[in-house]
């Protein structure tokens, strides 16, 4: 690991002033940063520890929605009773992420900013070509082992998956990322790679995420995060879906639905086509199945990840059907 200086920020402003310096990086829980430093991917000159800043780890839930401070721990948010009640998909996305040890360390801000697990990105000593690490150098993944690479939002420059779970739930809920004074819709916050895979979010040098706002929505309390993978715990998603559902009083017609996908795209992926196909429709297995197929419209496989194109719609359909039957049961209607 390279030598670097360590600064403990005394205020958000100090952190930002430090972070604008070339080679500076914010340090929160460190579970991504340290890992990447060991791989030789992150080579900060200065590390600015923000974990001692006060007032950034609050979790507040009221009628308007939730506000989660950037330094709140994944575990704290996952276990927060108000979050569990108001936004079950958020809690579940966190509980199903990483391991308890990591969730105890990692922060919400750091979680959004986690980097891809593309093995070629993480092994600079062997694979010099990686457009994300070294713009213009090429992509080692294309033509290589791609089982865990994205099928949606890919470009010729990069096919790396965004593996985070929380952001998928947040995208479904139209959350807003607070970057100090400015606020950005989370769907805009994350960028597809295009020709500039090195640019993953709208964060500029010297900026810091301070919190996340999640607006209340009618279906939010009736939401689920479904994560499918080979290992039952401590594995990134082969495919996942965050879904929230609000039915009309008849207990079967969709008033509002939000669908987002994880594990299959280069950013947390909102599946608006699925939502549009279902709003106003009565829920039944066939309708859900047909609509769910729209989740992978435009999907492109690079070999080993072909299965994701078949899997993702099934995960979406199961999440919707499970929610619908649960809703029908609790409202006494028929699904």
């Amino acid at each position: 690991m390279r030598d670097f200086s360590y600064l403990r920020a005394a205020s958000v402003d100090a952190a930002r002033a430090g972070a604008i310096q070339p080679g500076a990086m914010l340090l929160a829980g460190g579970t991504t940063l340290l890992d990447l430093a060991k791989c030789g991917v992150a080579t900060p000159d200065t590390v600015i520890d923000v974990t001692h800043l006060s007032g950034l780890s609050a979790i507040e839930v009221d009628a308007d929605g939730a506000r989660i401070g950037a330094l709140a721990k994944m575990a704290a948010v996952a276990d927060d009773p108000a979050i569990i009640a108001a936004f079950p998909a958020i809690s579940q996305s966190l509980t199903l992420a990483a391991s308890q040890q990591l969730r105890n360390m990692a922060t919400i801000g750091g979680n959004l900013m986690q980097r891809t697990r593309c093995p070629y990105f993480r092994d600079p000593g062997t694979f010099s070509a990686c457009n994300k690490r070294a713009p213009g150098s090429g992509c080692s993944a294309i033509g290589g082992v791609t089982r865990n690479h994205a099928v949606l939002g890919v470009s010729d420059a990069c096919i790396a998956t965004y593996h985070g779970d929380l952001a998928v739930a947040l995208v479904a809920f139209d959350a807003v990322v607070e970057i100090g004074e400015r606020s950005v819709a989370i769907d805009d916050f994350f960028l597809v790679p295009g020709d500039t895979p090195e640019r993953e979010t709208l964060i500029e040098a010297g900026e810091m995420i301070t919190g996340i706002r999640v607006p209340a929505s009618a279906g939010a309390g009736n939401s689920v995060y479904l994560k499918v993978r080979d290992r039952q715990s401590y594995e990134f998603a082969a495919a996942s879906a965050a879904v929230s559902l609000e039915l009309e009083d008849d207990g079967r017609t969709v008033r509002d639905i939000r669908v987002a996908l994880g594990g299959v795209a280069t950013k947390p992926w909102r599946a608006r086509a699925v939502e549009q196909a279902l709003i106003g429709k009565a829920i039944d297995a066939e309708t859900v199945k047909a609509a769910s197929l729209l989740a992978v419209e435009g999907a492109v496989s690079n070999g080993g990840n072909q299965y994701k194109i078949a899997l993702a719609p099934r995960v979406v359909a199961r999440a919707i059907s499970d929610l619908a039957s649960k809703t029908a049961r609790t409202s006494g209607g028929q699904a």
Partner: protein
Amino acid sequence: MTIMEPNREPRKHGSAGDGMVGGRMSRFEGELKIKGAATYALEYPMENVAHAVLVQSTIAAGRVVSVDISKASAMPGVLLVLTPQDDLGLTMCGDWAGNPSSGEPYYPLPQTVQFNGQSIAAVIAESREQASEAARLVTVTYEETPSVTGLHDPNAGEGKVMPNLVVNWGDAEQALAHAEVTIEATYETPREYHVAMEPHGLMTTWEGDALTIWEPSQWSHGMARMYAEWFGIDYENVRIVSPYIGGGFGSKGQPLAYGAVAAAASKKLGRPVKLAVTRPQNFTSYGGRAATRQTIALGATKDGILQAIRHRGMSETSVYADYAEQTGAATPVLYKVENFSSEHRIVAVNTVTPGALRGPGKNPSAYGIECAMEELAYVLDMDPLALRLKNYADHDYQSGKPWSTRRLREALTEGAAAFGWDKRSHQPRSMRDGNQLVGYGIGCGTFPVIRAPSEAIIRILADGRVEVVSGSIDMGQGTYTILAQTAAEAMGVSIDQVVVQLGDSRLPGSSIAGGSMLAGSITGAVHKAALAARDELVGLALNAPNSPFAGSGANTLSVSGGEISTGSGDGPVVTIAEMMKALGREHLEIRRNTLSDDAQEAAEQRKAWTTMARVMGPTMGDYSMHSWCAHFAEVRVDEEFGTVRVSRMVSAFDCGRLYNPKLVESQWRGGIIMGIGQALLEEGIVDPRNGRTVNNNVGDYLVPTNADIPDLTVISVGVPDLNASALGGKGVGEVGIVGVAPAIANAVYHATGKRVRDLPITLEKLI
């Protein structure tokens, strides 16, 4: 410099009633490990230590043209950079079997690159951080040559037949041609890794010509010999210290290139050197289980009597050494069959030489034959349990010898009863639970009884404690504990009085902790020494003039609970401590070995402890001796997602007598858990373009988590087998994994009707 002696404090353990052989004593060193109080090799306090970091190749094959170390050498703290240009002055060591060295020079950092991830340079610096950053700045220029990166490489070819792995009896071709029913299928297993919790690494220091090495070791004496031969120094001058090991699974039985590099660097620098192999480097610094492929044809009558087995297997090896992962190891011993043909080939590819990983050979072999048997059962429309019982082998058809003990029938029937096999409905896809398909499957397993001599010292101390001293090791399998139990029982003392000292090549000789041979071997030596020590003590008590029993007229004494008495109720009762005081002895030491009479010369003894020369296979002698097991698995498959969950397992074992059932069950369960990983998760994924293992970390190389493991019921159906070992046990460490993967693969077929013939059974293979 401080050298810590292995902990000599008495260790606390379970209740005294558990202290005899067969008691359910908890592991001696378990508490130390859980509390972080066990000192692992790299944790020994050491002053003035320098840190070495390896640089590994990033191509699969070729030649190192040049290594630019200018940047690395200029980094702060850097003391030394070793490259292929540096002659470390080493000589090849003799092999495991005891064949002497060829005398050729040994280059642990070779010029020729034979696989991706081969060590080609090392940087030694004042701190690990300095060394690792400097290592990153070492620039290697290669001349690449074509490579073959695995069995699936189009240029892999068919390899070569291993003549010692060709087995034939009867006429398999003829019998297959005439069989009423035949099946034929090809099964594959991928590269798999040990991924022990404790990564590899070592600390070394020299004093003159004497080399001390702290390194996790499954075989302190064997490794000491190999280091000695590399450096051309006397065996007595090498000391391997390894009292605690964080798992080995076969990977820590021999010194490896990085060990030679660290010791050579230490010698050059004249100071201690510590080398920690990084987790990614662990994937190529020693070999995991080789990828295998085997094709099995079975012929049977319509009512399910096996007529023939034809097996053709292959495994990958490296381009510089032959290692066979014997796909035919279990095939000949599981069933009664009159016509048999098996052949195993090895195919050289650009990988580190594969090595032994829990149940080597037997494991992939059982996967093949046990899947094939179930495939046959479905073709015959016959219950797979009934098919196995119908073809039960009454003796070993390969050697023609009778089994010493074989309770596989009991394993099958008692396992089936405990599992509820009779509740199975035969047709695939016929059992459901909600939207999950449910399936049942069986896999039988076997592991040979391998016998080896060992020696031990029993030392009775003045305070009445009994010390067991052996150079054997405990990597978590329970050596400390069962040796204490063995000594306590043989000596007639409470287990709290026993102190066990292990893990040092200077201590008495021992077999390797591998091939499931150590427990049988070392309990034999300890038992023998402890009985002799007790006899010695009783003899002194009867005859020494100062003994309280002097003149008592007794001609024998009993030792029980640490007290010596006449056993008849009258006469004195004297503790061992009191007796030692009366005798005026500081200690009483007895050394015994279980070598045959022709091997008692010093040189022969040394050879026995440091090579495999005196190791005996399962059919040396009048009997064929093996451990046996039958696994019953229940799986739930979410067919839409392709995910498989093992929801229940029952496994029944014949491992003879169990020295400590609690530890044995834990060995079995550990094996079963690794088997679940093998069936569903584990696979070294290699980039075919450059032979790089891309999932070379434990975030991406998946082993089971607690959530993946259901309740595992284990049952012992064994009886003591005194042909197998002095105390009647057969090996327990490896048999547990053997047969698990086929049981699960068979259950997945029963659930889904889909036969996946290449492990692991990941979701994309089922959706």
